[in-house]
């Protein structure tokens, strides 16, 4: 037993020792300044700096005596929660991070990644200057040389193979302005082959959710989850992927004594806090939902009034649900009846209930159908459009929501306008670019004797770029194969089938990587030349806005200047556009001074064109005012009191849609489709996006017309007390409301519409007048429609279960096969053949373990950036695979030992080497891997292939070397969440 020295007197504090005569332990700012030698310089600086920006008594490496310290605010560049980062800067160096207490989103908190972001701009392992491969050796070059050579090579490819042979892979780590500019760049180059990480993240969510009720985004917010009585997380592990969101989830759980249900194949760190954990087999989301709906419909727990007023096609769902009786549900999912019933009853009765999901629903060959099933559960129980309920879709990267919104996507121009002629004309009007010139940038193909405008044809998804490189030219539905990849801010290890990707990389004529780090692209495959690395700075080194998962926009200010020779995204795009000869057109309304592009001007241009999604009201001035007044916003409602200057009445970050012009001062929309609020308070209805009525075929061969407009439901204060279609100039005239338009608004509408001014809708009216007038009457200009339980334009209008391509249950494939082969997005999708072959060959016997993947809290995405951060890398030094103790014992594998993992599509005899983590976290027959690792490829260390000094600290095998074929028919989403593998001891 140790001797306790209770009698020992506490010594005087360090402070009082240092400062005899001072009162104990308290230190005011003045005495700190005196002591630290700051008086002369520090107080002198007070004269020129606003008081609040002067460092008081601050932490971090002490600033040089006399140096002033300024505080700058930006947003964390990792996940989509959108935590405010408060940086202390002295002499151009970021010397410390302080908690951002005022942000209602994170209230000072961070996770491991957010608490370590300062390292990113110290950047020991950053790419320092432009480089190119010369006969397999990385060689330093100048920016001028890089841009000139890249531009010439792109032009050569364009002349030989057409613009579609250059693929533009952008990033969810761009700011909104960067995303928009990159999309715009692709348009001026003349291709729709432009994509980003949303493809492999929530593309299926966007498609499925938008096709249900109008917009494909999180309906509520992290903060609003505090109002939930039941939280159900299906296919997400926010404790690791969105740690700061858990602050809201856990506090909500505590304050409401809420049910916290986690349905997941893995007993995740989130599940550790669940009131009920349900372990399912990967790839059985739809049977699980239908199993719940079976009990809900049978017991009458559905919200009948809600369905009657606001939902179309629920009866079609009932028919499909009938087959999912408890016995069939248990046969397919393994879930016992009692548990399914209990969860269903809780979710339906203890309202408000919200459903939270992430990649555990989306990354499947049935991803779109999965999220549709989730929406249907919410609709059936009346859990959309209120506080504390809704589809809380947790997006991945810091700006994947914004990058998706701004059209970094193969199927649309910015803000979901699509690729139709009308969409192009709208944006050409905004850009003040001649439509005919724009059209001349794109090729036209002849298919079956008919011309096909590539301008209006969806591009190739990022999951398939290497197929577009490797497949015979005839199988790729464009002029030529993909010959060049221009990759900005995008890992090379996040897409499935990496052995194929490596072959694809080798076949490219040109590879350009613009990133703070070399990324996997730089080392995968054996390239000798025509490969360029451009050092791009992080968002901390430039300014711009980013959209968090809850649709709030937050403005980040530049913390320090780009380090080393790196440049920001905007300036590099300007250089490249100048080289390619369209900078004058592209930057017509965007100020460029000495090569520095104004991010504010880009946002203003977005405002001028972003009517469809309500990106029109968030001017840079308003966003900056929000960052300045963060403390004014309420934690739960996210709203500032009406009498507060600058931001009064606004929701934090003006969550889109924020309608009308900035001058209209719409507050943004905290909860979508919420009829309990007036539209000018952020209220709305389901969007009337799918027409006014639909002709249904009946079983006796006759047809009937069914209304798609809401039935007796409307938002608070609406003058039209029923469903109504979307507003056009013509509709305004019919209602007699057109007289309320100003002369300027009317002139703009008539200019936009030309001869058909009556047809000008709220989304292409560049004046915002139609929106303003409709909202003045309490109406939402996009119409008041029903949400669709039956989305007839999708491959499976009502979701049906389909087994994963590589299923561990070949016995179920006959009943639940994947969809037939088809050509989708310019390339063939032969999932049906692959599934059939796998069953015929008995793949499930050779590879008996299910493989699924997910996130670690320390790393993000492809992981190059975070694995290069010494504070994070230290915490996770090895790639690993989680194995159930029973599976490990069968194979003689010990915890912590090296194992060899192989997948059904890997080259024969090749294996991936990683460590085993033997744990009951995964069920028997299931393995789990983090997806952040790269730099080992099929048991070969690639470290020597990185440019010297820019290799990440931690390298490891990528799980996507093991993952396999499988694509969602609606979006081209990959299927890494349910595949097969085999593991043996090394």
């Amino acid at each position, binding site marked *: 037993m140790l001797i306790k020295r209770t009698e020992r007197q506490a010594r005087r*504090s360090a402070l009082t020792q240092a400062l005899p005569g001072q009162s104990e332990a308290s230190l005011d700012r003045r005495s700190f300044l005196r002591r630290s030698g700051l008086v002369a310089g520090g107080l002198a600086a007070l004269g020129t700096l606003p008081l609040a920006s002067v460092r008081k008594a601050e932490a971090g490496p002490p600033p040089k005596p006399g140096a002033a310290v300024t505080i700058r605010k930006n947003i964390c560049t990792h996940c989509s929660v959108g935590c405010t980062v408060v940086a202390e800067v002295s002499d151009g160096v970021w010397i410390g991070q302080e*908690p951002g207490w005022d942000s209602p989103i994170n209230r000072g908190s961070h*996770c491991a990644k957010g*608490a370590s972001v300062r390292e990113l701009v110290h950047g020991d392992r950053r790419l320092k200057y432009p480089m190119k491969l010369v006969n397999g050796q990385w060689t330093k070059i100048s920016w001028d040389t890089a841009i000139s050579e890249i531009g010439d090579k792109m032009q050569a490819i364009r002349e030989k193979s057409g613009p579609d042979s250059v693929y533009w892979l952008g990033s969810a780590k761009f700011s909104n302005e960067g995303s928009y500019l990159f999309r715009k760049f692709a348009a001026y180059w003349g291709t729709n082959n432009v994509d980003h990480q949303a493809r492999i993240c929530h593309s299926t969510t966007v498609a499925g959710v938008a096709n249900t009720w109008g917009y494909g985004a999180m309906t509520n917010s992290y903060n609003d989850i505090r109002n939930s009585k039941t939280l159900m997380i299906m296919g997400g592990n926010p404790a690791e992927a969105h740690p*700061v969101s858990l602050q809201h989830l*856990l506090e909500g759980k505590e304050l409401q004594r809420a049910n916290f249900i986690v349905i997941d194949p893995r007993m995740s760190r989130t599940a550790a806090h669940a009131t009920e954990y349900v372990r399912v087999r990967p790839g059985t989301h739809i049977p699980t939902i239908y199993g719940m709906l079976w009990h809900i419909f049978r017991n009458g727990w559905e919200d009948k009034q809600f369905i009657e007023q606001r939902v179309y096609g629920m009866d079609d769902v009932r028919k499909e649900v009938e087959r999912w009786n408890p016995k069939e549900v248990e046969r397919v999912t393994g879930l016992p009846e009692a548990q399914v019933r209990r969860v269903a009853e809780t979710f339906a009765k203890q309202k408000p209930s919200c459903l939270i999901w992430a990649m555990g629903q989306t990354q499947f060959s049935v991803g779109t159908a999965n999220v549709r099933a989730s929406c249907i559960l919410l609709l059936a129980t009346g859990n959309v459009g209120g506080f504390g309920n809704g589809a809380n879709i947790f997006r991945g990267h810091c700006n994947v929501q914004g990058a998706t919104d701004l059209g970094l996507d193969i199927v649309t121009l910015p803000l979901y306008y699509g690729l139709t002629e009308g969409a192009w004309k709208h944006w050409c009007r905004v850009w003040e670019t001649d439509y005919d010139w724009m059209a001349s940038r794109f090729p036209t193909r002849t298919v079956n004797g008919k011309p096909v405008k590539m301008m209006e044809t969806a591009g190739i998804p990022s999951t398939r770029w290497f197929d577009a490189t490797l497949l015979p030219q005839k199988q790729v539905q464009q002029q030529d194969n993909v010959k060049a990849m221009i990759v900005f801010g995008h890992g090379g290890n996040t897409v499935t089938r990496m052995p194929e990707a490596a072959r694809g990389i080798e076949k490219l004529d040109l590879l350009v990587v613009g990133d703070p780090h070399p990324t996997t692209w730089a080392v995968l495959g054996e390239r000798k030349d025509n490969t360029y690395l451009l050092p791009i700075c992080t968002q901390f080194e430039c300014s711009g806005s980013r959209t968090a998962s809850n649709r709030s926009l937050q403005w980040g200010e530049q913390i320090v200047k780009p380090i080393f020779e790196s440049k920001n995204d905007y300036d590099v795009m300007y250089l490249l556009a100048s080289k390619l000869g369209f900078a004058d057109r592209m930057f017509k309304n965007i100020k460029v001074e000495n090569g520095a592009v104004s991010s504010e001007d880009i946002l203003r241009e977005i405002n001028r064109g972003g009517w469809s999604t309500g990106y029109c009201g968030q001017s840079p001035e308003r966003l900056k005012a929000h960052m300045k007044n963060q403390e004014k916003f309420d934690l739960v409602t996210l709203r500032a009191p009406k009498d507060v200057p600058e931001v009064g009445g606004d929701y934090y970050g003006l969550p889109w849609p924020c309608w009308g012009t900035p001058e209209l001062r719409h507050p943004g929309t905290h909860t979508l489709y919420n009829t309990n609020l007036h539209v000018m308070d952020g209220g709305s209805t389901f969007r009337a996006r799918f027409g006014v009525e639909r002709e249904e075929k009946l079983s006796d061969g006759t047809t009937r017309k069914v209304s798609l407009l809401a039935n007796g439901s409307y938002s608070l204060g609406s003058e039209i007390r029923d469903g109504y279609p979307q507003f056009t100039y013509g509709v305004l005239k019919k209602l007699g409301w057109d007289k309320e338009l100003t002369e300027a608004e009317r002139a703009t509408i008539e200019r936009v519409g030309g001869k058909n001014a009556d047809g000008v809708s709220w989304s292409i009216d560049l004046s915002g007048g139609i929106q303003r007038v409709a909202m003045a009457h309490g109406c939402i200009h996009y119409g008041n429609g029903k949400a669709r339980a039956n989305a007839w334009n999708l491959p499976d209008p009502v979701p049906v279960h389909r087994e994963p391509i590589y299923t561990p249950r070949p016995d179920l494939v006959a009943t639940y096969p994947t969809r037939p082969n088809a050509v989708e997005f310019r390339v063939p999708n032969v999932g049906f053949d692959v599934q059939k072959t796998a069953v015929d060959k008995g793949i499930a016997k050779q590879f008996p373990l299910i493989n699924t993947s997910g996130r670690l809290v320390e790393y993000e995405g492809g992981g190059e950036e975070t694995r290069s951060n010494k504070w994070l890398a230290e915490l996770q030094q090895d790639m690993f695979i989680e194995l159930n103790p029973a599976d490990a014992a069968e194979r003689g594998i010990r915890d912590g030992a090296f194992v060899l993992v192989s997948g059904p599509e890997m080259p024969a005899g090749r294996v991936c080497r990683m460590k085993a983590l033997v744990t009951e976290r995964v069920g028997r027959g299931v393995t789990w891997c983090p997806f952040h690792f790269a730099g080992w490829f099929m048991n070969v260390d690639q470290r020597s292939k990185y440019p010297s000094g820019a290799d990440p600290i931690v390298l490891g095998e990528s799980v996507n070397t093991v993952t396999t074929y499988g694509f969602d028919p609606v979006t081209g989403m990959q299927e890494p969440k349910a595949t097969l593998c085999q593991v043996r001891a090394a």
Partner: protein
Amino acid sequence: MARMKFLCDADRCIECNACVTACKNEHEVPWGINRRRVVTINDGKPGERSVTMACMHCTDAPCAAVCPVNCFYTTADAVVLHSKDLCIGCGYCFYACPFGAPQYPRVGNFGSRGKMDKCTFCAGGPEADNTEAEFVKYGTNRLAEGKLPLCAEMCSTKSLLAGDGEIIAQIYRERVVKRGYGSGAWGWRTAYRETIAT
């Protein structure tokens, strides 16, 4: 005078390691030294719980009791600090500490230990506050600036609380009453020889 304590609410901790990297960032702690770490019990099983762990700044600190050179001292805020000038790297404190807090940089090839390093409750060391000399040895001194340890200030779920023991105990007590469960203030009996009654 405030009696500074740490309190980890194990029902809130999600092992996000924010506390760990916040500490690394704030004090520029080198690779291999972990002033704070998160420990998980029942990993992957129902009942899994995590707690973040660092020097608890014990009442009657056992490290101080065993130190042969008397390098430890307790500040008026009851923060247990030590002098690296006096420390001889003997490692006794490591064996005495019930929380595994003391850390040693490896300075030679034969397992020889350097000066002990541990959590300072963001209160620096014996050198004058917020000087370069203090920063190099002990990291920043937030307490002297009227701020609390950054690990707790940045905790993702407000699981880790740091501050006056009376106040953080009250916060915890209110939480437990409101939510109806609590697993006790982890480590308090060992460190402070008291528990929080609710």
